[in-house]
């Protein structure tokens, strides 16, 4: 069987194990984005995200026999590796505050990035500030809430998928998500007031 974009992850991996570089490349390109985003959203550091992405696939390459298709999809397996790597780093370094350094302050972010809505630069700037504030709020969550919020909200995994990945009950995921979102809402409360004021000023103008 020849590797193609329609080939399943598991089949691509089987072909890659047999030495098919094209299959490995397809598999990597299909899954690297999610792993990279997950690591970045969990750590707030692009360099950590790069390392975790690379190490996750290296772990897959290095110990191919550890992945058993019968136990779940390859994507979940990769998430699991990435999660362990991220948590290990979080445990080691306790806090990553590189987000601001990576992204710059919100004003700089507004000025430097390409506007998505060229007709409304203020809205674009506000949106970027919101995104930056949400990232910081997510990073400020305790790790066990953060990973649930990242997986269920930012990666749009189902409760069941997240529960399998985190090796916990669906009810645990549900309760952690509720708690995580409540904490997130608290942290975003100030931002919400600012946005409301901006909206009022715009309306008045």
């Amino acid at each position, binding site marked *: 069987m020849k590797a193609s974009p329609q080939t399943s992850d598991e089949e691509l991996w089987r072909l890659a194990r047999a*030495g098919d570089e094209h299959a490995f490349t397809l598999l990597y390109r299909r899954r690297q984005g999610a792993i990279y985003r997950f690591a*970045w959203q969990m750590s707030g550091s692009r360099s950590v995200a790069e390392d975790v992405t690379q190490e996750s696939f*290296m772990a897959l390459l290095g110990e191919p026999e550890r992945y058993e298709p019968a136990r779940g999809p390859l994507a979940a397996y990769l998430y699991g590796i990435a999660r362990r790597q991220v948590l290990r780093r979080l445990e080691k370094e306790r806090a990553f505050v590189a987000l601001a350094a990576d992204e710059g302050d919100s004003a700089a972010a507004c000025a430097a990035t390409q506007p998505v809505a060229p007709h409304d630069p203020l809205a674009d700037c506000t949106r*970027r500030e919101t995104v930056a504030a949400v990232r910081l709020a997510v990073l400020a969550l305790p790790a066990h809430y953060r990973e649930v919020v990242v997986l269920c909200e930012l990666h749009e995994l189902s409760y069941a998928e997240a529960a399998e990945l985190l090796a916990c009950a669906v009810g645990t995921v549900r309760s952690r998500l509720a708690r995580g979102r409540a904490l997130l*809402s608290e942290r975003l409360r100030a931002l*919400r007031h600012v946005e409301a004021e901006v909206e009022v000023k715009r309306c008045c103008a």
Partner: protein
Amino acid sequence: MNCEQVETLLTERARAGHAGAGADALDHLADCPRCAARLSEEQFASAALSAVVAEDAGMAAPAHVEAALLVAFRAQAERATQPGARTAARESAPPLPGWLWPRRAFAALAVAAALALLAVAALRFRLTPQQEPQTAATSAPSQPVAPQPRAASASPAQENKRREESATVKAPVHIARRAVAAGPRAVRRPATRAHEPAMELASVGEMVVVGRAPEAESVSEFVPLVGEGAPPLASGQLVRVELPRSALASLGLPLGPVGAGERIKADVLLGDDGLARAIRLVR
């Protein structure tokens, strides 16, 4: 429906929108400003998170990550095609026969038993050091263990703390092992690792030989650690152990009052079968 019940549903309702809300919940939200505010917050959080999802949608690892992985993939594929390559051999090799696992387990148990015997020996040993020439049959020339670097002026409190730590955790602080017959060919390990807790006793591989034995080193007699029924010693290794005297004293050994802060060296004769056969103290 009360506030508590609505609170448990807020996340779901915020994620799903009002479409998922029952009539009773909507009634409560219309009547309760606090719950309505909470729902509003949750909806704001959902919108903010959605903005992050949209922002991150195209995010990808840099190209050099893919390049590095492809290099690793090619290297691995190349190794796999080489006959006799370790990886290929491991992957193609049949699983270990069932009889080999018990032997491995036995070896691990033997090492653990040797460690246990060391502890027992420390308890049993009575220090009566005497000048004695080396016993040629069982020992190579004794060799000193590098001295532990210490602070030049440690306070008594610090010294006591250090002793306590040594007695509880780091009792066998230094172990230098050398093959009985290996002598000068034994591998010298970097000095930076010489102070590590000496769990190497249970491992195999490179161990420390520090310097050459001084001529005037005195040792006690070997005290046997195994009974008459033990298998004969075909070959073995002499393991140099360094213990703080305070640690031995804390175990009840009558070591005398002199030099309570010193470290005591001991040689343990360790058979290749993993059994500790005898122990002697070194001065």
